[in-house]
């Protein structure tokens, strides 16, 4: 009956969206008034009701202040109704024309309801009364000290009636020459004394202001003396400086060497490092800057008393060469230094040393030869360059990337039998001619920095030439990417990890959201298609998010594929949309409609027979809000006695039930998707005669007028839930737990809640923004750098199975892998109840560590998992007999136990496998048949897969 929405005045939303949203405002505002600051998300709402509405132009009113309320319907300001303030005079008063005057003190509770009674119906608006700073009471501003030295700082505070103020604006009168002040009130004095030397600081809040005067004074002129431990130092030697002030060591100043690095360098702690050559002039000045003064001390730089004059031979042409160093000042115990590293040295006399230079590669390099005095007495000698000269080679490509590589090497004197290696690992080498070699092999994708490409003759035993070749830098490291693949996909599938490595986290998320949801074919098992998608497809983030969502929006397994696959596809689609759409879709889902008896639920026709409350309760309890009120950081709200506060009461369950009556299954459309008479591909449709058309009241405050259609009531009900302040932290915590960590900090939850409330463009419920916020949060990424930053989460059985399948890039040989989840206690799409497989509030028994997935762990499941993993690795597990282990990326590229352990360390453990685990694996493999390397590799793989430190995505 109300086809056109009302027009709105004085509203901040744009006209284009007003028509759709404004009818929702009347009940939305209650949410804003509960202290969540949820705001109003215009483009996310939909309601086509043309009912009267009270315009919400403010969300707070100060004590004693007034606010004009207006009721409109379809653009017309209503008159003739009656305004009242619920709760009477202590909550303020309102005139017949809607002018509200707030009480002079903040009422308790501070949320106030204004009601407009119009044609027998009540319409309401909610806001919060907040304290007004007592009018006229002065703001006083004070510095910690009244006088500030040039370049000094002073913390200012603003007070009103003995209460500190925040949120105001600080400024320095007269601009930068009088200093500057930051938002917290920290004043920084200018570098010179201004004229006049008194500056004024102002604090402005809510139209009132206060000022303080500060006097800028010179830096106290106490004398600082700088002393050096030694008045002179040899080149490359060190000397400790100290600055003294009135008998104490001065602090806070800065050390400098006048004239720059050629005169030496100095640390922040005053340790002077002499230059490697005597400068000119040979005396340098070291300074200590305190305030505007600099205090100097001269240091004489002396030549080393140890001098190297010559090295023989002058060029190295083999990897191990005896050299003789000639010079003066050598003593027994003096060592020849090669690039500052002492080598084994023989003392001949005070002007001769001999020693051996051993090179690890035939690289053309220049070595610095010095003589290092024994102990730490004196400084090393001057350096003489010693060149290593080997046949030079060129390598193409000039920059290498991880993965399969083909090197073209040009040089000279190559001969058959030469072997090319990279960092010690031999490549398949083809000598094309004396000047050309082609070598192919595999560069592990976690290789970073540079590698040494070496050509060795004599079947690889005699290095001939080498070149250092840089590695192409990737957007993120392999290790960080493999860790991310556990959070955002189904584990470190090698191709996925390398894709993330190239695209970076954000780029990969963007790519994934461009991928479609899985399309399920009726000709194969739905579950097989899901597993196949995870193990070989590229809609990974969608599948992963769908799996996360269905941990608390739990579908009903029906033993008929379409009943599950359409639900799966809906979640995979909606995970990149708006949560408001998801709410509509789950409420229209035939799967949930059947599971929780929403379909065919009927209005009461007899007071002794009431509609079924199942869906309404779980919609709030499980799918969106949770039973207790939350703060934005996910912590529970409590009353004065510490009691939890319920999110909804039974009357809200009953009225939401009534609002959601009148839905049924449509006539089948796709016969192939029909089972038990239900077409599982089709959303529920209305059955208006069974809808309860009476008025409803949700959360004690949101009024649903009578005679709305089933669709109107559903839309209003879902708007209320969508805008409830519990939804952001409730959803944030659950999704963080599924993707990143079981124990997020309150700050992490709050940051994600904030993005749910507003994606940065004013949109509430933008799921792609929420997913980005979760996966890219510093807390999620900290573990990339600091392995023990968080506990992560225990992989639940489905993720555990898909992790193995991903690591081994197998899709299974048939449908048998579908049945593994069930024996491990988690059968995809087939949770035992609507509460899913585990409770989100599960703690590890006897601890305060949250670990929902731990609820599926017990003494039996832990050993069963090991047995399953071993059977899979051995290819003796049903469904895993397709010989995929030898064909896997790991087994193709890592063919020795050390290489495999290294690979497992990076792929499974992102570089953090414990030394004990590596040792246990290596030691056990060493006891096995040395001629069956394949078996040893399988054992290594199994032990690494099986460990608890791999079961947990850390």
């Amino acid at each position, binding site marked *: 009956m109300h086809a056109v929405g009302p027009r709105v005045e004085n509203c901040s939303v744009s006209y284009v969206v007003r028509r759709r949203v404004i009818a929702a405002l009347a009940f939305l505002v209650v949410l804003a008034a509960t202290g969540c600051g949820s705001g109003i998300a215009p483009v996310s709402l939909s309601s086509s009701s043309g009912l009267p509405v009270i315009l919400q132009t403010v969300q707070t009113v100060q004590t004693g202040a007034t606010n004009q309320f207006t009721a409109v319907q379809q653009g017309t300001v209503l008159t003739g109704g009656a305004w009242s303030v619920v709760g009477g005079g202590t909550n303020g008063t309102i005139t017949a024309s809607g002018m509200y005057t707030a009480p002079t003190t903040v009422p308790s509770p501070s949320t106030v309801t204004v009601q407009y009674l119009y044609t027998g119906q009540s319409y309401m608006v909610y806001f919060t009364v907040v304290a007004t700073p007592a009018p006229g009471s002065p703001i006083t501003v004070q510095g910690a000290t009244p006088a500030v030295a040039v370049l000094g700082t002073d913390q200012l505070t603003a007070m009103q009636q003995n209460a500190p103020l925040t949120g105001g604006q600080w400024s320095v009168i007269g601009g930068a020459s009088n200093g500057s002040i930051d938002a917290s009130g920290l004043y920084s004095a200018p570098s010179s004394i201004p004229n006049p030397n008194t500056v004024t600081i102002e604090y402005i809040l809510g139209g009132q202001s206060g000022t303080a005067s500060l006097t800028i004074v010179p830096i106290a002129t106490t004398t600082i003396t700088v002393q050096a431990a030694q008045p002179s130092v040899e080149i490359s030697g060190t000397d400790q400086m100290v600055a003294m002030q009135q008998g104490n060591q001065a602090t806070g100043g800065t050390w400098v060497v006048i004239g720059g690095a050629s005169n030496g360098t100095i640390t922040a702690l005053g340790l002077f490092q002499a230059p490697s050559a005597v400068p000119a002039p040979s005396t340098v000045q070291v300074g200590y800057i305190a305030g505007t003064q600099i205090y100097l001390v001269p240091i004489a730089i002396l030549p080393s008393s140890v001098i190297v004059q010559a090295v023989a031979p002058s060029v190295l042409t083999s990897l191990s060469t005896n050299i003789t160093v000639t010079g003066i000042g050598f003593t027994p115990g003096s060592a020849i230094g090669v690039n500052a590293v002492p080598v084994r040295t023989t003392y001949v006399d005070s002007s001769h040393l001999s020693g051996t230079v051993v090179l690890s590669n035939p690289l053309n390099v220049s070595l610095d030869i010095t003589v290092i005095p024994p102990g730490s007495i004196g400084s090393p000698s001057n350096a003489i360059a010693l060149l290593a000269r080997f046949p030079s080679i060129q390598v193409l490509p000039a920059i290498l990337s991880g993965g399969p590589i083909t090197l073209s090497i040009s040089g000279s004197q190559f001969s058959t039998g030469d072997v090319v290696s990279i960092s010690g690992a031999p490549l398949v080498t083809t000598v094309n001619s004396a000047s050309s070699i082609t070598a192919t092999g595999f560069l592990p994708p976690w290789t970073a920095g540079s590698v040494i490409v070496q050509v060795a003759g004599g079947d690889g035993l005699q290095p001939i030439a080498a070149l250092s070749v840089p590695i192409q830098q990737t957007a993120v490291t392999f290790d960080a990417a493999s860790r991310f693949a556990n959070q955002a996909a189904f584990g470190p599938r090698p191709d996925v990890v390398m894709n993330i490595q190239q695209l970076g986290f954000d780029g990969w998320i963007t790519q994934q959201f461009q991928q479609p949801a899985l399309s399920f074919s009726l000709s194969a098992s739905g579950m097989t298609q899901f597993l196949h998608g995870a193990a070989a497809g590229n809609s990974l983030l969608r599948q992963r998010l769908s799996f996360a969502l269905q941990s608390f929006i739990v579908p009903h397994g029906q033993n008929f594929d379409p009943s599950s696959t359409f639900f799966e596809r809906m979640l995979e689609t909606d995970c990149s949309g708006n949560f408001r759409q998801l709410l509509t879709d789950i409420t229209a889902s035939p799967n949930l409609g059947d599971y929780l008896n929403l379909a065919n639920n009927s209005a009461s026709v007899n007071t002794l027979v009431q509609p079924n409350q199942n869906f309404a309760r779980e919609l709030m309890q499980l799918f969106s809000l949770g039973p207790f009120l939350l703060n934005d950081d996910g912590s529970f709200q409590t009353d004065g006695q510490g009691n939890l506060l319920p999110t909804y009461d039974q009357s809200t369950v009953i009225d939401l039930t009534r609002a959601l009556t009148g839905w049924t299954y449509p006539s089948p459309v796709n016969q192939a998707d029909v089972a038990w008479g239900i077409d599982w591909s089709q959303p529920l449709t209305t059955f208006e005669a069974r809808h309860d058309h009476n008025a409803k009241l949700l959360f004690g405050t949101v009024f649903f007028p009578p005679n709305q259609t089933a669709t109107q009531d559903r839309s209003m009900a879902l708007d209320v839930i969508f805008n409830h302040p519990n939804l952001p932290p409730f959803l944030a915590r659950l999704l963080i737990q599924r993707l990143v960590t079981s124990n997020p900090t309150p700050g992490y939850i709050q940051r994600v809640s904030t993005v749910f409330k507003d994606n940065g463009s004013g949109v509430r419920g933008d799921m792609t923004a929420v997913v980005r916020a979760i996966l890219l949060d510093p807390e999620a990424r900290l573990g990339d750098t600091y392995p023990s930053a968080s506990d992560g989460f225990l992989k639940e059985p489905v993720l555990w199975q898909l992790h193995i399948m991903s690591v081994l890039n197998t899709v299974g040989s048939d449908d048998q892998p579908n049945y593994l989840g069930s024996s491990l206690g988690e059968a995809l799409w087939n949770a035992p109840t609507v509460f899913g497989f585990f409770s989100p509030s599960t703690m590890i028994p006897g601890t305060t560590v949250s670990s929902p997935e731990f609820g599926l762990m017990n003494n039996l499941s832990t050993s069963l998992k090991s047995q399953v993993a071993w059977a899979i690795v051995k290819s003796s597990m049903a469904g895993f007999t397709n010989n995929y282990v030898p064909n896997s990326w790991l087994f193709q590229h890592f063919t020795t136990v050390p290489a495999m352990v290294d690979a497992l360390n990076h792929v499974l453990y992102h570089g953090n496998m*414990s030394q004990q685990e590596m040792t246990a694996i290596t030691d056990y493999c060493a006891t096995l048949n040395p001629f069956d390397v394949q078996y040893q590799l399988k054992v290594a793989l199994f032990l690494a897969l099986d460990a608890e430190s791999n079961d*947990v995505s850390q």
Partner: protein
Amino acid sequence: MTAPLWQDALCVKAFADVTNGYRAVILVTLGGGNDANNMLIPLSAASYAQYAALRSSLAIPISACNVLNSGGGAQSFGLHPALRNVSSFYNSGRAAVVANVGPLARPVTKSQLRANASLVPQALLSHPAGVNQWESSSTEALPSTGWGGRMADLFVSQSGTLPPLFDSGGQSIFTVGRSVQAISVSGVGGQTSAFPTGMQDAMLAIASSDRQSQNRIVAAAAALRVQSIQQQTLIAQAQASGVPLNTVFPNGSFGQAMRSIASIINGRSVIGASRQIFYAQQGSYDTHAAQLAVQNSYLTELDLGLGAMMSALQEMGLQDQVLICTHSDFNRTMLANTVAGSDHAWGSHQLILGGGISGGRIIGTYPDLDLGGAMDLNGYGTWIPSLSVSQMTGAIGTWMGLASSQVSSVFPDLGNFPDGVIAL
């Protein structure tokens, strides 16, 4: 390697008690909220008429009920048609029904509840909160321990070489103690294959190292594995020992859970336990729609499993030393809904079997079936409990031999009830 928590020199002494002083409790939680209004049915003409009017489509014909012996003049009751074994135990004095019991922190009246919302258990009518409140014997929605776990904390010295607490699969708060955790005796199945000699040592070495991990989840999971490896042999030995039982347990998960529990009890001398606590879950009673058939099938499974367990206890001569009781999330509304189901309610009826109790009686008071009356919280037939869970479970704690100070610590709300625990 550190000794498991429960290992104690006293277990040697406890061995002597295994036969004479053995006591065990088996808790069966009826998952999803069993409609107790159709488990215990009033049969006197006036009450039955009231019952039938309120239940409409859910009413069970009076002729189908299993009639319970009424002790001379008391109101007569029947049990659900499926509960044939339980009715027979009742009528032979080996079972009792506790009437209208539910989570309560203190005795309350409807007007007090109306005036003070904090007297209502947290998140009343919620499944997880309801189960948690029953299994923790509290009114908290998110308790950290259960009453089984808290009793087990006190029985560690009497449980021999394994913890005193066993579950037969399924998560619960019941088995979480402050220091003792349950071990599972059945549950997940699946293919298994033996590990090569030597590899188990490598696995244990890695788990022992992971047990020291800074990562608390890794450390806990690895500790569980190390413990599991140590316990497996012992559990298998216990389950294989004792005189083989002739009782045939039903197929299906509940019957097999009862079988597993019976085999542990039968092997108690291998473990050296004189106190044991067992936990099982049964059914999926959340009958929001099409209730009659669903509840009938689950109560049938329950009845057959309990019958087998009672028979096995008889075989072992432990019929008076092992007590079985039921819990459930909540009762369901007396009123039926429009799709022939019922919704979440509060005060419920529960079964107690075995244990040498004084059976054949209704313990407590059957609610007055007055819709909107003094016993009905919200006009749907949501009975305000007249007995608290702690009065029922505290009685079982006493039966298990807890000293009165221990009963007070395990069941802290009991002190609020002047009547104390129910008499078994």
